[in-house]
C-alpha cells in the first residue's frame, strides 16, 4: 500500500544510541550530561600529544547485549578504524569507529505497526564508535565555542538494511529500537539530550523496479515526529523531482522543523573521503564464546516475548499487552502491582487481577505520570501502595470510583490508601441497616417518582441509585445498594 501510486520509497535508518556507561569509550572521563563545558575531558578526549585510547569493556558488553537481542552475529574479532576528517569539535582529527569488521552484524527485529501488522526488519550491522564534541555557534559573538564533554562518549550505531517503505514503518522501527535499547538497559533513550538520534537514508523507485534510486541522507533528526515528517517530505520531494524529469543528487540534507522540509546541507556535493584504516593504537577486539554467553545469561525476556506471555498467560487484551511492553519500567511496575495483589489473595489469584492492574497502570498511573513527565522508575505511588489500594477495591472497602479519588490523594502525598480512606471517611457503606435507612429516606422524599416506578417506569431505578449515592456521598456499596433498593421498590 503506497500513498504514492506507482512509486516505492526505500528507507534505511542509522540510529545512534548513546551507551549508558559511566565513562567514555576510550578514556576514564565521565559521560554525565549537562556539566560545565570542557570539564569532563581526559587528556585522551582533548587529544593531547601522546594520549592513547583504551577501550571501555562496559561499552563492548552493551553492544553484545544489543546484538544478542536481535539475534545477530557477534564478531569474535572486530576492528576499530579511524574515520579521518577535520572539524573543530573532533579533537583528534579522526573519529574512532568500526568500519570493515563491526562487533555486531545481521540480526532482525519484529516491528509492530500501528495497524497491528508486524514486519520483520533486517539489520545490516551495529558498531561501536565515539561521539564528537559540540560546536556552540550561538554562544559567542563572531566565534564558535567548543565543548568537548561529549567527545568520546560511546555510541552504538545501529544500521538497518534499506527495507522500510514508508515514514510510518520507519518511525515504528525507530520506536521499536528505542524500546529495545532502554529495555536492555544499554541506552537511556533521552532524545532531548541527544542520547538517541537518527539519520535516515531515503530513496524512491518505480513500483516493481529492482535497482535502488539515488538516496539522500537526512541528518540528525531528534524526535519521532520529525523523523516521520522529514521522511514524508523527502519522499514527496524526490517523487516530484523525478516526475518532473529532474535527477536526485546523492547528498546530505537537514530537516528544518520550523518549515517541515529538508534542505541540502552543502551547496555542492563533495565526495567525502574519510580515509578509513584500522586504528594502530587499538588491537582488534577479541570476544570469546564465554564472553558472549556471560552477556547472554543476563539478557531479560524481550518485549515481544513478554507481550505474547501477557496475552497467553495473563489473558490481557492485545492492546494492553502492547502498551505495557513499551518500556521495561512500566512492565516492572505492572508486575509488582500484580504480585502485590496476588500476595494479598488467599487463593491462587483471581483471573481479573491482571486486567485490574493493567487498567490502573495504563489508566490512572500513566495519566498522572504523563501530566508531570515522570517515569515509571520514579513513580509517586509505589507499586505496592497501588496494590494495597486495589485490594481495598476488591474487598469492597471502597468502590472503583472512590479509588480514583484515593489514588489522586496518594499521588499528591496524603499517605497510603488506608490512611486516605480513613482520613477522608471514604469507607463504603456496606452496613445493611445504614443503607436501608438511606433508601427509606430517599423513597420518602420522592413519592411521585416512587409511584411512577411502581407504575412500570423502571428507568427510574437509576434515579433512586443516584439519590442514595448522593445522600451517602458515594460511599454506598453499589452491589448492596442495587439489591436492597430493588427489594424495597418491590415491597
Amino acid at each position, binding site marked *: 500500500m503506497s500513498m504514492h501510486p506507482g512509486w516505492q520509497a526505500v528507507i534505511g535508518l542509522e540510529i545512534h544510541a548513546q551507551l549508558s556507561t559511566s565513562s567514555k569509550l576510550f578514556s576514564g572521563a565521565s559521560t554525565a550530561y549537562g556539566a560545565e563545558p570542557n570539564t569532563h575531558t581526559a587528556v585522551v578526549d582533548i587529544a593531547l*600529544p601522546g594520549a592513547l585510547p583504551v577501550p571501555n569493556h562496559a561499552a563492548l558488553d552493551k553492544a553484545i547485549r544489543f546484538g544478542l537481542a536481535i539475534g545477530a552475529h557477534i564478531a569474535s574479532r572486530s576492528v576499530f578504524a579511524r574515520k579521518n576528517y577535520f572539524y573543530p569539535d573532533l579533537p583528534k582529527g579522526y573519529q574512532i569507529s568500526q568500519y570493515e569488521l563491526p562487533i555486531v552484524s545481521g540480526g532482525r527485529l519484529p516491528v509492530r505497526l500501528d495497524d497491528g501488522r508486524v514486519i520483520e526488519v533486517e539489520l545490516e550491522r551495529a558498531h561501536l564508535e565515539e561521539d564528537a564534541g559540540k560546536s556552540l555557534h550561538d554562544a559567542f559573538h563572531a566565534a564558535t565555542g567548543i565543548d568537548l564533554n561529549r567527545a568520546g562518549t560511546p555510541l552504538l550505531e545501529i544500521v538497518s538494511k534499506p527495507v522500510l517503505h514508508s515514514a510510518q514503518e520507519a518511525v515504528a522501527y525507530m520506536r521499536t529500537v528505542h524500546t529495545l535499547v532502554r529495555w536492555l538497559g544499554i541506552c537511556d533513550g533521552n532524545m532531548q539530550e541527544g542520547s538517541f538520534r537518527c539519520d535516515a537514508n531515503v530513496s524512491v523507485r518505480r513500483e516493481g523496479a529492482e535497482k535502488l534510486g539515488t538516496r539522500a541522507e537526512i541528518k540528525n533528526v531528534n524526535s519521532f515526529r520529525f523523523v516521520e515528517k522529514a521522511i514524508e517530505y523527502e519522499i514527496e520531494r524526490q517523487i516530484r523531482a523525478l516526475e518532473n524529469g529532474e535527477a536526485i543528487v546523492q547528498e546530505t540534507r537537514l530537516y528544518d522543523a520550523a518549515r517541515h522540509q529538508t534542505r541540502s546541507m552543502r551547496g555542492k556535493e563533495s565526495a567525502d573521503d574519510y580515509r578509513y*584504516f584500522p586504528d594502530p*593504537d587499538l588491537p582488534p577486539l577479541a570476544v570469546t564464546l564465554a564472553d558472549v554467553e556471560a552477556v547472554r545469561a543476563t539478557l531479560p525476556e524481550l518485549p515481544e516475548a513478554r507481550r505474547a506471555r501477557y496475552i497467553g498467560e495473563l489473558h490481557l487484551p492485545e492492546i494492553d499487552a502492547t502498551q505495557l511492553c513499551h518500556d521495561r519500567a512500566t512492565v516492572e511496575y505492572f508486575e509488582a502491582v500484580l504480585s502485590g495483589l496476588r500476595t494479598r489473595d488467599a487463593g491462587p489469584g483471581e483471573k481479573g487481577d491482571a486486567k485490574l492492574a493493567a487498567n490502573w497502570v495504563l489508566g490512572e498511573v500513566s495519566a498522572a505520570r504523563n501530566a508531570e513527565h515522570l517515569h515509571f522508575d520514579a513513580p509517586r505511588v509505589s507499586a505496592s501502595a497501588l496494590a494495597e489500594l486495589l485490594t481495598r477495591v476488591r474487598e469492597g472497602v471502597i468502590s472503583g470510583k472512590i479509588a480514583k479519588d484515593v489514588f489522586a490523594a496518594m499521588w499528591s502525598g496524603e499517605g497510603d490508601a488506608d490512611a486516605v480512606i480513613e482520613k477522608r471517611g471514604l469507607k463504603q457503606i456496606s452496613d445493611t441497616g445504614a443503607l436501608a435507612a438511606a433508601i427509606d429516606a430517599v423513597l420518602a422524599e420522592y413519592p411521585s417518582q416512587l409511584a411512577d416506578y411502581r407504575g412500570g417506569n423502571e428507568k427510574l431505578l437509576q434515579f433512586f441509585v443516584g439519590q442514595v449515592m448522593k445522600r451517602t456521598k458515594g460511599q454506598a456499596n453499589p452491589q448492596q445498594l442495587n439489591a436492597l433498593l430493588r427489594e424495597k421498590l418491590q415491597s
Partner: protein
Amino acid sequence: MTGLFTSIAQCAQALRARQISAVELAREALRAAQTHADLNALISVDETGALAAAERADARLASGTWSSLSGIPFAHKDIFCTSGVRTTCASRMLADFVPPYDAGVVERLHDALAVSIGKANMDEFAMGSSNENSFFGAVKNPWDTARVPGGSSGGSAALVAAGVVPFATGTDTGGSIRQPAAFCGLTGLKPTYGRVSRWGMIAYASSLDCGGVLARSAEDCMHVLSAIAGHDPRDATSVARGVDNYADALRAPLQGLRIGVAREYFGAGIDAGVGATVQAALKQYEQLGATLVDISLPNAALAIPAYYVIAPAEASSNLARYDGVRYGHRCAHPTSLEDLYTRTRAEGFGAEVRRRILVGTYALSAGYYDAYYLRAQRVRRLIANDFVEAFKAVDLIAGPTTPTVAFKLGEKSADPLAMYAADVNTVAVNLAGLPAISIPAGFREGMPVGLQLIAPAFAEGALLAASHQFQLATDWHRRTPGGAA
C-alpha cells in the same frame, strides 16, 4: 669528555661510595651540556627540575634505598611528554607546548630516581635520519661536527657520545635509535614493540613507534631497559607479560650462539668499508664461540617501500590533531575554518613532515588504499615471516646497522629518497615488531661503524647478552670522540 660518565655502573658506584652526590653529578652534566652547546643537542635544559630530582635521589641514597639508576643524569628525547616541562617534538607546532602529564617512560625513570637534565633535540616528529629536520636546528656529530649524528634520536646520541650524560631515551620507528647509535659509536637498543609503554610518547607511526635507550654499553642499556620495560594499561598495544631479569640474562655466554648473517644486509648500497668492518666484528664473534650461519631474508628489499607507505599513512592521521584549535601553534588572524587549518599546519610543520602527511594522505585515499596501504600491509607480513623462518635456524641475525658511516650535514637533505635509503637495514625490524640493538663494531675513516643484532620478539635478554659478551672482549664501545676513555 669528562670521564665521569663512562658508564652508569661507574656513576652508581661513585654515588654509593659518596665520592660524589647526585646534585654534584647533575651540576656536572648541566655544565657539560653548556660546554657542548655547539652540538645543539638539547632543545630545553631543565636545571631546576634536574637539581630537584638530584636532591630527591640524594635523600634516598642517604637512606640506603636506591635503584641502579638513582641519581644518574640523563636526557629525554623531546618526544616524551614531561609534566610542566616544554615538549616540542622539535616542531614549531609544539614549540610552546607544556604537557600536563608525564609519559609512561618518564614516570618509570622518575620512579627510578634518574635525573633528567632536559629534552634532547630530534628530527621533527621523529621524521628523519639526520636530525636536520628540527625546528630548533640541526644537531652535530661529536665525532666530526661537519657530520650528522643520525636521526631521529640525534640529540640523544650526540649527548651520550659527547659524554654529557651516560644515557638518553630515544624512540625508534624505522631505525631512529639504532642509526644514530651507529653514527655516534654508541649502543642503542630498540625493544620489542609493546615492551615499552607508548603512553605520552608523541606518535609518529603508532604501529612502529618504540621507546628505547642509547648508552655507551649493553650493560648500561640493560639498566635502563629494566626500568622502562613493562605493561602499561594506558597503552592498549602494551604487552601484559612479565619482564625478564635482564641483569641475569647478560651473563649468557656466546658459546653455542647461532648468529645468522643476512646476505641482503651486505647488498648493494652498503659501503665496502662498513661491510668489511662488520664482517671483521662477526669474525670476532666466531672466535669468541658463536657460530655464524649464512642466511637470507628474501623480502628485505621491500622493507623501505612498505615502511614509507605505512609510516606516512599513520602519521597523516596521527598529526591531524595539530589543527590550531586547542593547543600548539595557531596562525594569526584566521579568516575561516579552512584558513585556520591550512595556514596553521603550513606554518607549524616543516617540509619533511608536510611531505609525509601528503604521502600518507594519498596512500589512504579512496582508489589508492588497496594499491598502497593494503599492499604495504601484505608486504609487512611477508617481511615478518622472513624473520620467523630465519629464527628457526638461528638465535640472532646480524648485519651493518647502516650502509655508510655518518654523512655530512646537508649531504642528503635535498634528496629525500637517498635519505630514506639510509634506513635499508633498520626498518624491517620495526615492520616485524622485533627487538634489535646496534653496537660499536669498529671505525671507517675515523667514524664509528655499527653492528646490528636482531632477536625474536621479547628476546631482549639474548640481544643484551650477545652485545655484552662482545663488549667484554672489545673496546670499540669505550672509544670516545676525545680518545679512549
